[in-house]
């Protein structure tokens, strides 16, 4: 395998955009990305798209060539990857594999989701398709309810509290207020976070990420060619994808995600680093409890201690291990298929010192964790300075 770098990134704002369709969002992100890397569409040798449920949300299928041709990327392989909320993380992993193996020298990875064209009840139903429709979903589970059951069990086994969950929401909203592209740039208080409308007990509305529209794109190239495009390439030091059961009731212990642990272990090994070396991370906080489980599974903190560790500020912008300085899915927004690549864009900006008000001081080694469903897919990526 040869070393690979991200050479360009571009994304749309995240939010509810009634006047924008799926393709126009993806094209905006793709064009920004091409411009950012001074890459012409004819140089792109393959197009990898992450999208969870475009056909259900919009009726449009065959999305990869539908978008790549609109970007002027012609003739080359254009393929959509679906792994629930880890769709574009998965596209990123597979694109990396192709470039690292020597198959291509310049590929674009994009992610997009257009969610707000459907009412919330229908969105909930579409998202539930990432669960096991023959069992848990038929019984009336929704995605918030699956994570609510994880939260209940985490509370039972480790003493995690509602206040600790709320602290994650308060932190991510504070971070998102500094992000000009975030869906909800709003600081919230602990009191608000604790008293949101109940969604699935013990989770309230402030424990849940947002229903958003948005797109993100990156271009990668082998490291030895990266400087043809940019003098600030960002190295992909490690990336791995792992899988597990789709149904929550098939997992022996729902307070930990084996797919996250496996993907993290492989990515750490590939990068030659450990969790203690990671300076900052973007993790998949689809729900507040998901961030707590993620920081435990990634090895940032011992199992069971993610709640108190979060509450005492260690994962804040000013803490020893800033987590979700972008605002995370909670505040930045969660256009499902765009999230994995958007996390890579956030790492890219931090490492290149281009993150504006969000800029962290310790920024040379970052990790992104992109989770699909209730832990059935996970992609972990580690990016660093060349």
């Amino acid at each position, binding site marked *: 395998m040869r070393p690979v770098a991200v050479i360009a990134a571009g994304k749309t704002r995240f939010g509810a955009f009634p006047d924008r369709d799926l393709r126009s969002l993806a094209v905006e992100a793709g064009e920004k990305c091409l411009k950012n890397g001074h890459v012409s569409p004819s140089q792109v040798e393959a197009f990898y798209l992450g999208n969870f449920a475009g056909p259900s949300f919009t009726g449009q299928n065959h999305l990869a060539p539908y978008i790549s041709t609109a970007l002027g990327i012609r003739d080359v392989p254009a393929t959509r990857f679906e792994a629930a909320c880890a769709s574009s993380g998965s596209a990123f992993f597979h694109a990396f594999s192709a470039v690292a193996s020597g198959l291509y020298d310049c590929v674009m990875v994009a992610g997009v989701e257009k969610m707000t064209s459907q009412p*919330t*009840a*229908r969105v*909930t*139903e579409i998202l*539930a398709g990432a669960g096991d429709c*023959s*069992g*848990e979903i*038929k*019984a*009336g*589970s*929704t995605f*918030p*309810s699956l994570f*609510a*059951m*994880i939260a*209940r*069990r985490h509370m*039972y086994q480790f003493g995690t509290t509602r206040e600790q969950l709320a602290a994650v929401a308060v932190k991510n909203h504070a971070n998102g207020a500094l992000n000009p592209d975030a869906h909800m740039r709003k600081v919230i208080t602990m009191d608000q976070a604790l008293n949101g*409308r*109940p*969604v*699935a*007990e*013990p*989770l309230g509305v402030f424990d849940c990420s947002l229903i958003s529209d948005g797109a993100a794109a990156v271009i990668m190239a082998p490291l030895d060619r990266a400087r043809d495009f940019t003098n600030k390439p960002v190295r992909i030091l490690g990336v791995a994808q792992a899988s597990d059961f789709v*149904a*929550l*009731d*098939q997992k022996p212990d*729902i307070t930990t995600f084996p797919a996250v642990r496996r993907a993290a272990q492989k990515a750490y090994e590939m990068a030659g680093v450990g969790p203690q070396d990671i300076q900052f991370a973007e993790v998949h906080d689809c729900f507040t409890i998901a961030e707590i489980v993620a920081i435990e599974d990634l090895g940032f903190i011992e199992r069971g201690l993610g709640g108190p560790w979060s509450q005492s500020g260690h994962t804040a912008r000013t803490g020893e291990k800033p987590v979700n300085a972008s605002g995370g899915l909670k505040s930045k927004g969660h256009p499902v298929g765009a999230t994995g690549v958007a996390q890579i864009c956030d790492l890219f900006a931090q490492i290149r010192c281009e993150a504006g008000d969000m800029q962290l001081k310790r920024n040379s080694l970052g990790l992104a964790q992109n989770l699909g469903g209730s832990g059935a897919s996970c992609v972990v990526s580690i990016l660093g300075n060349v």
Partner: protein
Amino acid sequence: MIGSVYTETVVHLAPEAFAKDVPYQVVIVTLEDGTRVTGRVAGDRVTIGDLVERVEVRDGVPFFLKASS
């Protein structure tokens, strides 16, 4: 069929198909043979560790009720 509640939640925001049932409780129950199943609670709310009995299967979905001890 008897089991114990492994975890539970009360759902307040549901897809259209379940909107009429809101709020309703979903449980994962550990059965006597150690396997787990996701189902619904038919009566009073249950909490982790409660013994429950399957009282009905509706469209393939098991419904549980707190077992009288």
